[in-house]
């Protein structure tokens, strides 16, 4: 299915959020996620099923003011 990841279109084969993160190369990366603008806690990734057209945001710690 086709989803949007951090603004870019991606074709993924996994259906759960944790599977898609591994597929996209995040593995054990220190990231937080939101699907369709709603936060998805790390503990809920395995139970979160993605749909075609979903918008996934993946963020990590960065410099800030």
């Amino acid at each position, binding site marked *: 299915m086709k989803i949007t990841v*951090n*603004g870019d279109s991606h074709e993924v084969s996994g259906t759960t959020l944790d599977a898609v993160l591994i597929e*996209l*190369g*995040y593995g054990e*990366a*220190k*990231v*937080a*996620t*939101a699907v369709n*603008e*709603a*936060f998805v*806690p*790390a503990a809920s990734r395995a139970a979160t099923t993605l749909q075609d057209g979903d918008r996934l*945001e*993946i*963020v*990590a*710690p*960065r*410099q*800030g*003011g």
Partner: protein
Amino acid sequence: MVTFYGTEVQSRLMLGTALYPSPAILEQAFRRSGAGIATVSVRREAGTERAGAAFWDLVRQLGVKVLPNTAGCHSVREAVTTAQMARELFETNWIKLEVIGHADTLQPDPFGLVEAARILTDDGFEVFPYTTEDIVLADRLLEAGCKVLMPWGAPIGTGLGLTNIYGLRTLRAQFPDVPMVVDAGLGLPSQAAQAMEMGFDAVLLNTAVAKAGDPAAMAEGFARAVEAGRLAYEADPMEPRDMAAPSTPLIGKAFLE
């Protein structure tokens, strides 16, 4: 010593972590200033990038308390989701809440700010709202559950100092028991000292240090100014007056005419 949401912090200087020439200079600025709180953010990460982990390792080495922000958020939903992601990443309930309402001045959206502050407080966050000097807005933020206020000195990144002295003085006087941090717009240590002399509990700045020719030296300059300003506030300054008053006694002056 200053206390935010029950956490005591030694330094009254809070520093941002953005815009430094290098991670090493960022680290030097924190070491020389003794800043006890560092603001951080969350941003998109590419699949194999791992930049977040590298930055997080650096921040942890600093041994400071971390205050994540919602910088760049223009809507309540965006700010709330960003705060929730930041809480998971940085493992803290603290959030510097920014809901921006105007692109050129980065002025807070007061309506969105109050709404987001209420949602986040109800969700267990300890909110540090980036606000203006407006006392009605301050009152609403306190009603929403905020126990700290962070009024701006001037728009973010301008270095203009305290552009509304009257407004800031009124805000300070209106809520004497609320910890307040002058956040944003400071360009020089003298401006930080001025804020501290007025009774603000701390200052938060980033650009003035990170964009100085020697960020570590400027960070130390700000740290000393913050200490000087706080000492002056605690020392109960004299009242200014219009007419001169000799400091040297006239009694006993030699008659030499």
